[in-house]
């Protein structure tokens, strides 16, 4: 299709990555602007902690959308943007942790270390962040070569665990108020993104069985 070819050409343009980079910094810009102009409402600390957390989930969903979108639409050039999306999920994750550590816990590290295991939802969020750290640390090309493609891919499948831990973190945070409206939107999106992969793996397995039979 002509449209797909055109979009692929745009995605391959040297400016595509810098453009995405700036776009991905836009949420940070809004949060910083809000904090500087005091327009984040009565509780700016809460708005910053929650706002940065929202963007972790959003970037994780965007990262996981790349492969289905690429396969279904034929926009193969999307693949070159995936790493940046994943790294921005990690970036907002670090920001989320730092806002919590600073604005909520006053950078009192002994308090923070005590708080993490005490509250299951904080523990789960911390685990997800540590896993993201492992993926971010092995995100560059040389890491792929050093680990070998197969091992690297196995490691990076941890992204599925990360997004599920992230969802659980958000679920527990809202559980006290029985307020799952917003959570269920993310849950449905993640279910579709992971469901598509399960469906595809199943299809491949049965195709292979047909071949070997």
């Amino acid at each position: 299709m002509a449209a797909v070819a055109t979009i692929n050409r745009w995605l391959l343009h040297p400016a595509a990555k810098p453009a995405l980079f700036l776009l991905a910094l836009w949420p940070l810009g809004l949060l910083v602007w809000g904090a500087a102009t005091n327009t984040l409402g009565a509780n700016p600390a809460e708005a910053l902690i929650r706002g940065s957390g929202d963007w972790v989930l959003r970037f994780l969903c965007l990262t996981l959308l790349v492969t289905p979108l690429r396969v279904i639409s034929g926009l193969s050039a999307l693949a070159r943007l995936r790493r940046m999306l994943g790294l921005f999920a990690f970036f907002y994750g670090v920001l989320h942790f730092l806002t919590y550590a600073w604005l909520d816990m006053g950078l009192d590290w002994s308090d923070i270390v005590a708080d993490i295991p005490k509250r299951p939802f904080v523990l789960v969020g911390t685990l997800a962040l540590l896993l993201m750290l492992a993926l971010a640390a092995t995100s560059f090309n040389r890491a792929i070569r050093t680990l070998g493609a197969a091992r690297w891919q196995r490691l990076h499948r941890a992204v599925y665990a990360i997004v599920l831990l992230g969802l659980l973190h958000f679920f527990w945070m809202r559980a006290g108020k029985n307020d799952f409206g917003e959570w269920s939107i993310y849950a449905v999106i993640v279910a579709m993104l992971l469901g598509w992969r399960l469906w595809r793996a199943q299809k491949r397995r049965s195709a292979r069985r047909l071949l070997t039979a």
Partner: protein
Amino acid sequence: MRHPPDHGFQHNVPSEITPRAIYQGRRRWLAQLASGALGGGLAGWAGREALAKVPAKGTALPGAKSMLAGAQASDRATPRNLATTYNNFYEFGTDKADPARNAHTLQTRPWRVAIEGAVNKPGVYNIEDLLKLSAMEERIYRMRCVEGWSMVIPWVGYSLSELIKRVEPTANAKYVEFHTLADAKTMPNLGSPVLDWPYVEGLRMDEALHPLTLLSFGMYGEVMPNQNGAPVRLVVPWKYGFKSAKSLVKIRFVEQQPKTAWVKAAEQEYGFYSNVNPKVSHPRWSQATERRLGEDGLFDRKRETLMFNGYEAQVASLYTGLDLRKNF
């Protein structure tokens, strides 16, 4: 307003108070400046924020300065625009900004409050009669939310005990139950399963009779804004904010401890007493500290939460012999 550290909160002399027309004009001017100086979508966003902060026009409801011990907190009062735009009133939505956005639909006239249960004089009170029942007082209370933030609000009202005395509870009245309005036509979030509506709260009889327990009709010298629980609500300053039920339509005197909305929703997280207590953590967060909204800066350390929210001298005797860790 002046806040000398040794005197605490003091009102200005009337001549120093900026007339409302002038400060609203200033805010309009700022909103216009914001929408003019910034381009595109940002202008609407900034302008909306600025407009949201213009306090809705309120009718004056003055109260004489209360002389009751503990009724004049020396803390700095929270700016009115924060106290009226950051609310937990789930009938109008679970986001803190929802009540200010949605509660304009609440019909506060006519309004009746039913007094039921173990009393000699049950009946239905019109809001006009409740407003006249006792002299209005202004009381400046700290308000500590179970979520870890706090405000300081000048309420207008009178002790709930004034009403209780008149309806003559019988010996069977061990607890008092408070029911919030549940009207699906005017409250957009009643379809949500967040809580089991109507919102029910409760106090032990001696807590309800404590003079600090306030039946409140207004704040900041004005009639109660809808989003803060118009036309009449409860304020119990030594308990977490959710104990202070809003928009009351029924007060019931009962023998058994009431099943309150939050206890029904999450028994392991919210107790019947819910006294502010820095030593008893919520299962998901510590209650040792709090953020005073509008006063503590973004990077300030949170302040220490006080036992019984600083009303220990007045209310601790209600709980002698009670295990506050078990009865959280």
